[in-house]
């Protein structure tokens, strides 16, 4: 019974969502948005579970003095601080327990929560995102090393695309006659991106789409149950 009820829910919900895709009549056209609202409500409650997990994990680290436990102290203090300032003065247009905190806003030109978000969290996120530039370089270096026919092909293609997207590519082959314009590096680069690259991406998307259909069908029919925790 414990397993059957979720399976019935999955079957009914899956079937209704499929019907809603083809039936624009009420109540079917409202089902998807209703289910999405339900999901949001459930997620709202689930956030609490996440917070409990976060606090427990870090508290365990601190109490057991596990390696790098100091980071957990920083994490918990940051968590508590953001929570407190958010509760007291709110964020953006939403007031907190003490209202909008005009006096505090005058001092730091923003609500404390927004100030910390914009001046601490966003720069940290941007810093981590900027690492991508270096990781792309190291990954590209490995991918482009001459090893096999495929890696050579990859490297030649990548070089054409990279050069074709810069002014160097334009400069190198700008002297080509009109009849050979296809071989002008920026044109070649566009061709690679527009045809072989798009074709490969679409093939992946189509096969993934079929995978989604198959996976969904297995879940709706109750054949696939491991996402519920077992058979």
């Amino acid at each position, binding site marked *: 019974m414990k397993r059957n009820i979720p399976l019935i829910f999955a079957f009914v919900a899956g079937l209704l969502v499929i019907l809603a895709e083809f039936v624009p009549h009420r109540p079917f056209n409202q089902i998807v948005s209703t289910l999405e609202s339900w999901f949001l409500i459930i*997620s709202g409650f689930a956030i609490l579970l*996440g917070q409990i997990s976060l606090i427990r994990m870090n508290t365990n680290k601190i109490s057991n003095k596990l390696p790098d436990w100091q980071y957990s102290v920083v994490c918990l203090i940051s968590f508590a601080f953001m929570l407190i300032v958010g509760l007291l003065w709110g964020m953006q247009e939403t007031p907190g327990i003490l209202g909008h905190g005009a006096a505090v806003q005058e001092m730091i030109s923003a609500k404390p929560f927004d100030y910390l978000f914009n001046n601490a969290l966003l720069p940290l996120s941007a810093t981590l995102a900027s690492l991508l530039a270096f990781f792309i370089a190291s990954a590209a270096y490995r991918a482009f090393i001459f090893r096999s026919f495929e890696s050579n092909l990859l490297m030649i293609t990548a070089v054409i695309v990279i050069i074709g997207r810069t002014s160097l590519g334009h400069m190198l082959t700008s002297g080509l006659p009109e009849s050979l314009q296809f071989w002008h590096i920026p044109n070649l680069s566009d061709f690679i991106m527009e045809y072989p690259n798009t074709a490969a991406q679409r093939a992946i998307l189509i096969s993934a789409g079929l*995978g989604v259909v198959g996976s969904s069908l297995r879940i709706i029919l109750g054949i696939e149950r491991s996402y*519920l925790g*077992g058979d």
Partner: protein
Amino acid sequence: MRKYVLFLILICLSTSFYANVFTAMDSPNDGGTALDLAWETCPLTEYVTIYRLTDNSEWVEIAKIAESSGKYRDIELEINKEYHYRLQIDDDLSLEASAVTKEQWFNADKLGFLVFLLIVCLAIIYYITAAKRGKTFYIRRIAGLDSMEEAIGRATEKGKPILYVPGISDLDNIETIASLTILSNVAEKSAEYGTELIVPCRSSMVLSAAKEVVQEAYIKAGRPDAYNKDNIFYLTDEQFGFVAGVDGIMLREQPAANFFLGAFYAESLILAETGFSTGAIQTAGTAQAAQLPFFVVSCDYTLIGEELFAASAYLSEDPQQLGSLKGHDFGKLIFIILITAGVILEILGYGFLKEFIVGAAL
């Protein structure tokens, strides 16, 4: 001179006798919230203004269009209600029309989509039923899935943990669901081998589901005592905060096997490259086409698109689930036939197949 005068007279006559037409009709294939307006006026018309009669009997301007002939869809209307419209041509002549919004029971634009979906679903159901009757199917080997046991075994030999990241999307993403089904298999194997499994989650909903999945897998493997609920934890909802957390785990715990399976976006390369630098055996899988090249470069094995969704069935070795994979292959065959036929028909100048398919994509 006479010629010019005659020409001007002809133009005036043609415009004055031009039949101005203004129609309003219910939009097809919708939930009864839109009406389609169409007009055809003298080609010399500079612009038309469309008005709608409100409940207070006032004409309210809803659009001003610089076209002598055209169409306009009035949306966000009330269902089963009559609406009156007025078309004013160049601040001069005005025409009126009215129509009632009606709900439709079937969206005919999606007929092609429905037909294709039914064919694929019936094929999958057919193959599942055939598998139930004992028929065996050939399923091609998927290196990334075959290597999972090897990766877990390597982690066991080295006495290091396994890291499993179920993507960064919430539970409403099918990729996350597919990832959780694979997590079940990985957790079962890690329980059998007695290897620690770490599962950091970005979403609280995924956390709850992952805990349940791992616990059940440990019970199934006969090792409920080895289950450590603290190893499945929530990090943060913040995308790059989550990446920083997972990178930290990889550098501190030095897992011997990393699994990145699910929906990944900009963080994919940061995760995979950090894992690569730790020397872990890495298996990744996503249906996000833009992230696949990053995984291919940095990971030992990559599940590409459909393979992620096939993984659970493949690993379960359950004939019914394997049968459904054969249904996918049938779908691919249909696609190949449709694409080939579409290309040939378009070259020959027949557009009906494209219209049928494009209509489905609306």
